[in-house]
């Protein structure tokens, strides 16, 4: 490949061949009518995703209105205490898990490829799968409120209240199983975004020229990968406690309620930055465009994003300041919580500097941006206040915190998202939302929001705790609660007006947009189902401003990849740092498999909740079959070895080994897996250190020799897999049989190892329900057994690939990715066994 071209010369010359555009259109043709459900193009999935998130916003908002209706008057009986507890639990859970994180991921799914100059995300079917699982699962979860069967333990689900003893119904299980798998959706989205941002940018879009929204999503995706596993681990432990009595959180049996809090908030604090940082990224895109000047302080903002993302992982304990952590630890976390204000302030002042350099035009979007500044800065300042320990000791778990969190979440995310909807609606179908209505909508939402939530600072300081279904008359709380309820209604009125306008605008006939705000970034290029006609070569941060003829050139097909080489959907893979064209990425077309797999996954988890094991298994099998069939279609040798993407420039079609984007995706998945594992190890360490002895009285360690033998067999298994991955892939039949036998041998060794380990624990009398230590040991063993099953499936799949001749030098991703996962699994076994066997020696 030779990217060198003389400066000024465009990649492709005119005239373009006949039929090139038609072929491109054909490849990207969306399915019609009800077949639209099988679409995988990010522009379709993105719209579904944004729409579904907004639906959950409205549904959870209605629940919020119910809360305010109940609290408008003292000693009100509109909602019973039991139902009220379900309402506020669902309000928080739906807002945080089904709206806040999904909408920012949805906007990224829709907008990011266009901003990066890519035609689609790198794994289109994966994002389709993630969306359908989320939509089906989320809607079913929400419906529990209609049957008064919702969880009622708060969105944060603290045990022991949520254990089987004190929450005997299935409400808590709906949360644990229903929300649990939606976390998988978020992680799938994160993997997609990291790979897309690092590998599919337009040529010339170095990291330093990348739109700030891309930086924000890169940081956020990395945070999702490291934070979500903690709550996945926690929900697994709590569900096992509820279903099988494994006492992770039961202090009477050696567990600890605080273990849940650590796991939940290790996820929960980064979660709020996962929600805020994308919005900050969007603000960084809209402010320069609307102020008509390039962003000031690009590097400061990027530094701010990365720093916030990094430090947010150190702050989780500030949600536990009253839970009895040591004063020294609390003071350290308090100082860190103050410090995290700095990188955010850097971004705020960069925006202020940009506004000062330019001249803000007033549009619907800029009104919401101004509202964002006001509300978010205010919320950030109350955040500084609650970072101060003694102040938090008073206001923690009061309405002061309710006020703070709504100021930062609604101010910091909802207002920028509304601004984004106003700003980028023309990209969706060329139409714009009504600027006239925008003033009213903004006015109602801004005034309503402040009227609703400012008084809560006061009611909190007057002693009103959170999550109370009423308050006594004569406490002085009446006026503030009434004001809040009126404000909520005003806010809701604004949202309703917005929805009317949004539906109206979206239903209009699509037309070409004329870049109405004169945006400088690539999403404002003329867009079609296939994205851009040709992938632009860029040389600056605001290509449409610096290269005024870019839009015309791209439309004419003068830039990279103006057609389709293989007849299907494609985009360019470029190098992560300097965005040099590397190879052609062949993307998949529309398919029913992600739809089926998504619905099947949702059905599996939801049916498990109601303990309909048979039907649940059936749907699980359907989902698994769909996934296997879908995977079977991937990793095929390309029909041609190279492709001409520009005059005289030939790129490889596809790539193998560590140059394959799927290998990096597997690596990220491995990081997720290791982080879940690390959470289970943390649980084991935490519980072990709480006990009087390790192992506790009545429990015994597994036999050391057996564990060592098991570990050795796993290492041998890994060695065989390593040999298999070093195999020279040819076509000879006997070679293939040998290759397959090596894989089978590795699997046999692994299964043997797992059996020996399980046997050793059984011989030692491991009884998970007896005490917390045994439960955490059993969890680590169960996690290894789960991996053994997954490896068995992978090995079988791989053997099938080998036998069918599909594994070749140019289609070896299955082998490489399985090998990577295999080694990571064995690493976990070694660490897990080591920790369990050695910890008692260290503690005595």
């Amino acid at each position, binding site marked *: 490949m030779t990217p060198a071209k003389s400066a000024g010369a465009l990649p492709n010359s005119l005239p373009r061949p006949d039929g090139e555009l038609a072929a491109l259109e054909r490849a990207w043709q969306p399915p019609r009518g009800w077949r639209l459900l099988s679409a995988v193009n990010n522009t379709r999935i993105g719209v579904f995703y944004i729409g579904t998130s907004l639906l959950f916003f409205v549904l959870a908002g209605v629940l919020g209105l119910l809360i305010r209706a109940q609290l408008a008057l003292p000693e009100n009986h509109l909602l019973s205490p039991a139902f009220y507890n379900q309402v506020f639990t669902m309000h928080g859970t739906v807002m945080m898990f089904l709206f806040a994180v999904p909408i920012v991921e949805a906007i990224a799914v829709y907008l990011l490829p266009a901003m990066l100059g890519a035609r689609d995300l790198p794994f289109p079917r994966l994002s389709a799968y993630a969306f359908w699982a989320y939509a089906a699962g989320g809607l079913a979860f929400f419906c529990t409120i209609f049957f008064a069967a919702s969880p009622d333990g708060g969105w944060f689900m603290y045990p022991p209240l949520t254990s089987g003893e004190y929450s005997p119904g299935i409400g808590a299980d709906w949360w644990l199983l229903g929300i649990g798998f939606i976390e998988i959706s978020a992680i799938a989205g994160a993997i997609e975004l990291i790979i897309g941002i690092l590998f599919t940018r337009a040529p010339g879009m170095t990291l330093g020229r990348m739109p700030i929204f891309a930086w924000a999503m890169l940081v956020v995706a990395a945070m999702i990968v490291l934070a979500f596993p903690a709550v996945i681990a926690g929900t697994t432990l709590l569900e096992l406690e509820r279903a099988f009595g494994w006492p992770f959180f039961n202090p009477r049996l050696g567990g600890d309620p605080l273990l849940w809090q650590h796991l939940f908030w290790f996820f929960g604090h980064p979660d709020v930055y996962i929600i805020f940082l994308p919005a900050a990224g969007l603000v960084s895109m809209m402010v320069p465009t609307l102020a008509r000047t390039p962003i000031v302080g690009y590097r400061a903002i990027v530094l701010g994003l990365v720093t916030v993302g990094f430090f947010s992982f150190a702050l989780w304990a500030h949600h536990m300041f009253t839970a009895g952590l040591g004063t020294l630890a609390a003071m350290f976390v308090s100082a860190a919580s103050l410090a995290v204000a700095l990188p955010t302030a850097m971004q705020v002042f960069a925006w202020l500097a940009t506004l000062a350099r*330019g001249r803000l035009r007033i549009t619907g979007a800029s009104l919401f941006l101004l509202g964002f500044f006001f509300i978010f800065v205010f919320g950030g300042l109350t955040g500084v206040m609650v970072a101060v320990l003694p*102040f938090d000791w008073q206001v923690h778990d009061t309405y002061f915190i309710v006020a703070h969190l709504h100021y930062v979440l609604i101010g910091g995310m909802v207002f920028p998202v509304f601004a984004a909807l106003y700003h980028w609606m023309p990209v969706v179908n060329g139409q714009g939302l009504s600027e006239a209505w925008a003033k009213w909508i903004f006015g109602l939402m801004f005034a309503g929001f402040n009227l609703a939530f400012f008084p809560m600072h006061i009611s909190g300081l007057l002693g009103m705790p959170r999550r109370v279904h009423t308050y006594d008359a004569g406490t002085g709380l009446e006026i503030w609660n009434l004001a809040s309820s009126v404000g909520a209604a005003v806010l809701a009125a604004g949202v309703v007006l917005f929805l009317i306008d949004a539906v109206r605008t979206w239903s209009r006939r699509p037309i070409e947009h004329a870049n109405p705000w004169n945006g400088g970034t690539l999403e404002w290029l003329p867009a079609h189902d296939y994205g851009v006609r040709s992938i632009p070569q860029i040389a600056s941060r605001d290509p449409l401003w610096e290269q005024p003829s870019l839009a015309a050139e791209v439309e004419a097909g003068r830039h990279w990849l103006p057609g389709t080489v293989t007849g299907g959907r494609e985009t360019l893979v470029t190098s992560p740092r300097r965005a040099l064209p590397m190879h052609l990425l062949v993307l998949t077309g529309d398919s029913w498999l992600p739809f089926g797999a998504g619905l099947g996954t949702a059905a599996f988890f939801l049916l498990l909740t109601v303990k309909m094991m048979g039907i649940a298994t059936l749907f699980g099998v359907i989902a698994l079959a769909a996934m296997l069939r879908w995977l079977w279609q991937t990793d095929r040798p390309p029909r041609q070895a190279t492709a001409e993407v520009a005059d005289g420039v030939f790129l490889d079609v596809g790539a193998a080994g560590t140059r394959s984007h799927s290998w990096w995706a597997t690596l990220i998945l491995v990081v997720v897996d290791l982080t879940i594992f690390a959470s289970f190890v943390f649980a084991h360490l935490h519980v072990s250190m709480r006990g009087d002895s390790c192992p506790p009285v009545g429990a015994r360690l597994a036999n050391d020799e057996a564990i060592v033998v098991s570990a050795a067999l796993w290492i041998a298994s890994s060695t065989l897999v390593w040999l298999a991955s070093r195999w020279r892939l040819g076509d000879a039949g006997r070679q293939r049989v040998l290759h397959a036998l090596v894989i089978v041998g590795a699997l046999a060794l692994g299964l043997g190892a797992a059996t020996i380990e399980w046997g050793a624990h059984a011989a030692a009398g491991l009884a998970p329900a007896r005490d917390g230590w045994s439960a955490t040991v059993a969890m680590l063993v169960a996690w290894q057994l789960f991996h053994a099953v997954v490896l068995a499936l992978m090995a079988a799949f791989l053997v099938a690939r080998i036998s069918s001749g599909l594994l070749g030098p140019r289609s070896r991703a299955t082998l490489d990715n399985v090998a990577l996962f295999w080694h990571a699994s064995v690493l976990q076994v070694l660490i897990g066994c080591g920790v369990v066997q050695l910890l008692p020696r260290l503690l005595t």
Partner: protein
Amino acid sequence: MTGNVASVLQPAGPTSTLIAELSWVLIAGSAVVFLIVMAVLAWALVGNTGRALRGPRQSMALIVGGGVAFPAIVLSALLVYTTIRTTAATKPGVTGTIVNVNGHMWWWQVRYRDPAGGPDIALANEIHMPTNRVVTIGLTSADVIHSFWVPALAGKVDTVPGRVYQLHLEATAPGVYRGECAEFCGVQHTRMAFHVVVHEPAEYERWLTAQSMPAPIPTGAEASAGQAVFVRERCAACHTIRGLTGQAEAGPDLTHVGSRLFLAGGDTRTDAAGFARWVANTQHIKPGALMPEYQRLDAASLGALAAFLAQLK
């Protein structure tokens, strides 16, 4: 209303006074910073724009000055100030009394040592203490996580089953201060109010001595009949009355329940009418509470029982 002061900004003890001072500093400081940032925003929008930020150096000065230097200085000062004040707040004075508080769903069990060495004094939803002496509360929970919070006196501390935490309370003036449960604990989390009653030291000693006595023998026909109802209905299965029943743990100790301010974590008074209303309508006043409702008691029995309980002072 059970009323009484429950505001963070109306402190009645040294710790809460310190925190209130801190609160005002934070409120004032945040207001000033907010106005400054909004002023910069206004200036950026309509002020001397473009000309003031001519080049990258001026812009970076604004970003570094406003976004790094200004918050770093302010927050460092805040950190120093609050660290000094926090260490002052957490330094316990001379500890005299120790009170054990055990959170239940949905009431607070309170235990004192009998100064005369007799059995522990147990009551519910009410703590008494003398002025100007530090009382150490030992906090735990019998079931789920609750949180013990008396805004007028101190910050809150969670009560976690399996763990025991300490909170030091000191009040400077006599009065009644309301407390709340501040950690969501189930269907009646809202109705777990308790009160801290602060006395002059001599009056407190008198109160403690009176509480250490066994229950008064009922005087009058109605109260005696009420005691018989209490025994007949097997209230002693959950409730202790020292001198009458054995030890029961499931419900609040009733030995001197008539001398308490309120019942059941709410605003029912401890007069005969209040007791009658509570016993007959438990599940209507506090649905989900672990005490059954005694609707089936006839009016005479109910009245007698109420009279009996009201005279347990």
